[in-house]
């Protein structure tokens, strides 16, 4: 349960294999990443947003719109999480974790491309003027290869953080 006041600031990051901000053309920028770790969330290196908080005790809405491809068609699944100032603030590693729960889990034939949307409301209790570095993480289960922004195509992903005043 959370509540907040008016929107104060918005920060965004778009990364991928695109030649312009709208992704109307392809460019081999190398802003793609393949996750192979089993049951472990991994940082998306191009997703980091850094900023300074505007108000004390603000509330944040984190939104990720990810372009993910499961390169191995075994249906084990993948998931997304967020890291905030070096600490993962959602998502669980390991055999009872949730690295499989956002898409692609199921029978054979569930590989391919997916739109992974992850949202989280977070109230870190920071003072105004605090430095923040946040990024998206992706996890997977078993022998999948989760490819973010599959290379060779004009794929891109977005990460947006909204800062709201406290109630």
């Amino acid at each position: 349960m959370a509540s907040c006041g008016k929107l104060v600031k918005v920060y965004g990051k778009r990364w991928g294999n695109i030649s312009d901000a709208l992704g109307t053309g392809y460019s081999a920028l190398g802003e793609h990443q393949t996750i192979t770790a089993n049951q472990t969330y991994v940082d998306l290196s191009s997703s980091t947003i850094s900023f300074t908080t505007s108000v004390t005790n603000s509330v944040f809405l984190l939104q990720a719109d990810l372009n993910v491809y499961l390169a191995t068609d075994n249906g084990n699944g993948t998931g997304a999480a967020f890291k905030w100032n070096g600490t993962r603030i959602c998502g669980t590693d390991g055999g009872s974790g949730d690295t499989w729960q956002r898409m692609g889990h199921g029978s054979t034939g569930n590989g391919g491309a997916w739109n992974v949307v992850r949202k989280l409301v977070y109230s870190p209790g920071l003072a105004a003027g605090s430095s923040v570095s946040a990024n998206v993480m992706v996890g997977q289960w078993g022998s999948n290869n989760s490819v973010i922004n599959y290379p060779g195509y004009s794929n891109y992903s977005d990460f947006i953080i909204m800062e709201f005043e406290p109630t």
Partner: protein
Amino acid sequence: MAYTYSAGSALQVIHNNVSVATAYGSTAYTYVDIPGTSISLTTKGTGSLIHLQCYVNGWGSSGNGVNIAFKLNGVVAGNSSSSNGDTWCRAINGATAGRSWNVGRSMLWQHGLSLGSPATISLMMGTWSTAGVSAGWSSYQTYFHVTATELAASS
């Protein structure tokens, strides 16, 4: 090169709920308009950004893939190319049988328009092949939504 954005408070929010709309993939690798999804606004700030959000669901009988893109003052935020486009990469690529799908998009648009300029936003669907992919599905009730939130320039 990644693109970074920052903005301030909300200036206006425009929302469109489309109770029934159907668009079929008619040309391979190509984005087509989704009828009824258009919204229009007049900018209220100089140097503002627009936060775009949408939700679209549909059905496809092949596993060649589908994507949803925003159309922004006539420019498609996507790539209709047969060699390196992105019309396949948000849903049902890799499926071995027909299946329903949903795509939720969220992105910031740095429009570069001056105060008082018109902006028109709508949704498009892209497919990698034309085989039976549809946003919505005829004879069944569905709805999509598209939301545009204009954000003041960052101070």
